[in-house]
């Protein structure tokens, strides 16, 4: 059930005091959004579940610092995305030169202007279920899962989440040139498989 801003403020206050039911009610309307954002980056169910758990815990622990400068859902979503990025870095399958250089989970620490708006799940489900898009969506998800993780995360952050190249470079600790190279390889890989579908999209 969607909550009004006043109800949301009450839930945040109660959750900060340690009320787990209030925290559950605060999170639940956005749970699908948070999970989906993470899953798109990690493309693995178990990893997504683990990262979501980390993200939700970070939201809970960060709640006393939530100042309401952005929408709660935008702030919390950013924490979940950061949890996905951190999960990728801490994964044993991923070898990082600077393993200690983890991105911060708190969006207001690194990004003074986190996203102000997010797709609402109700509106989302309409487009999600449109028959003509379903085939392409499924194929895109399948193709994303085939991409090397370093390319997938850049593609998702740039082309799906609409982060700037500079923000991605800062968050990942790489140059903008590297971001563009990975982005190009990802787009190329996806287009090589799905170009006819994308050219049919009105």
């Amino acid at each position, binding site marked *: 059930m969607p909550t009004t801003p006043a109800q949301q403020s009450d839930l945040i206050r109660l959750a900060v005091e340690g009320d787990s039911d209030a*925290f559950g009610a605060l999170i639940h309307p956005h749970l*699908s959004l948070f*999970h989906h954002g993470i899953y798109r980056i990690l493309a693995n169910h178990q990893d997504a579940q683990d990262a979501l758990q980390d993200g939700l815990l970070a939201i809970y622990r960060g709640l006393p610092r939530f100042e309401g400068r952005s929408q709660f859902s935008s702030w919390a979503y950013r924490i979940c995305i950061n949890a996905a990025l951190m999960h990728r870095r801490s994964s044993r399958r991923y070898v990082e030169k600077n393993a200690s250089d983890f991105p911060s989970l708190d969006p207001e620490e690194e990004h003074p202007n986190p996203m102000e708006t997010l797709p609402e799940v109700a509106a989302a*489900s309409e487009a999600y279920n449109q028959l003509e898009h379903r085939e392409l969506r499924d194929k895109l998800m399948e193709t994303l899962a085939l991409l090397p993780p370093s390319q997938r995360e850049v593609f998702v952050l740039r082309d*799906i989440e*609409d982060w700037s190249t500079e923000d991605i470079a800062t968050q990942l600790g790489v140059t903008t040139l590297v971001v563009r190279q990975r982005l190009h390889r990802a*787009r190329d890989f996806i287009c090589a498989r799905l170009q006819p579908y*994308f050219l049919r999209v009105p």
Partner: protein
Amino acid sequence: MTPFPFPPCKEVHESLTELMEGSAPLYKRLMLRLHLAFCDACRPAYLAFLAMRRVGPKLLLPPADSPREAEDALKAVLKRVEQDRSEKKIKG
């Protein structure tokens, strides 16, 4: 085969992201656009890149209902929150 001697198709294809991101120098952008206007081999790839950027976010919107794994993650966190609260009460 490109109808233009410069830049060649391979270079154009490799520069599509640079062109979309606006990071290519002005002269290069002009050459790329000129090539794309006339080259039937490169133009579809560029249009597909643009379409992907335009419809990707709509295609990958979240479903209305969260999957089981998301519900399980929330349950685990709520349990942890409860535990933290109980421990605080005991200590307090």
